């Protein structure tokens, strides 16, 4: 079964700072990769996803993620964060074959200070 690791559970940064959240997965086969965001008091929403093709994926709100197959990684980045980016961010992996289950990482709680 696939598993997902996210490090640095709590991240605090100032507005305009750059953000990078790491995501590593363990699975030997081909995977689909997702980043979900959960704003305070809201449900999870899809931020971006990777299935195939260009490993650099652009998402909503200026976020992007890069799939590096050799490193089993799918790190999320934003060059300049805003206060409204305060949220919890989850990386998720779905194997392309086998069970149809999303495996989630433990999440990154990001707080942006105005």
């Amino acid at each position: 079964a696939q598993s997902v690791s996210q490090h640095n559970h709590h991240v605090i940064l100032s507005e305009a700072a750059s953000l990078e959240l790491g995501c590593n997965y363990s699975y030997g086969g081909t995977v689909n990769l997702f980043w979900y965001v959960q704003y305070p008091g809201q449900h999870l929403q899809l931020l971006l996803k990777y299935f195939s093709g260009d490993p650099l994926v652009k998402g909503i709100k200026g976020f992007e993620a890069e799939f590096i197959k050799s490193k089993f990684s799918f790190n999320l980045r934003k060059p300049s964060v805003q206060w409204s980016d305060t949220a919890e961010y989850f990386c998720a992996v779905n194997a392309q074959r086998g069970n149809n289950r999303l495996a989630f990482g433990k999440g990154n709680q990001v707080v942006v200070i105005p």
Partner: protein
Amino acid sequence: NAGVTQTPKFRILKIGQSMTLQCTQDMNHNYMYWYRQDPGMGLKLIYYSVGAGITDKGEVPNGYNVSRSTTEDFPLRLELAAPSQTSVYFCATKEDGSPNTEAFFGQGTRLTVV
């Protein structure tokens, strides 16, 4: 469209009480899931269903039951609530079993067992 609707939003239970968390969707999605979210632990899959009349266990099914009598509804039942079931519960749906399809989440039910 309402999407995925969960009720109630909040609930406090006493140890040993029972309750049902409701999840209903109007997207005609076949796949439905129940997750629990604990701080710093990410989302863990409790049960899932690939269609009406079919349910299966996820990672953490103990203490829970589900049913899927219709496409729209996927209630989660706690028969004897325990403090370990204090968590935020999310219902999610997917259109089909393809790993490429996006999961849509409800707004969550925050349950406290005292």
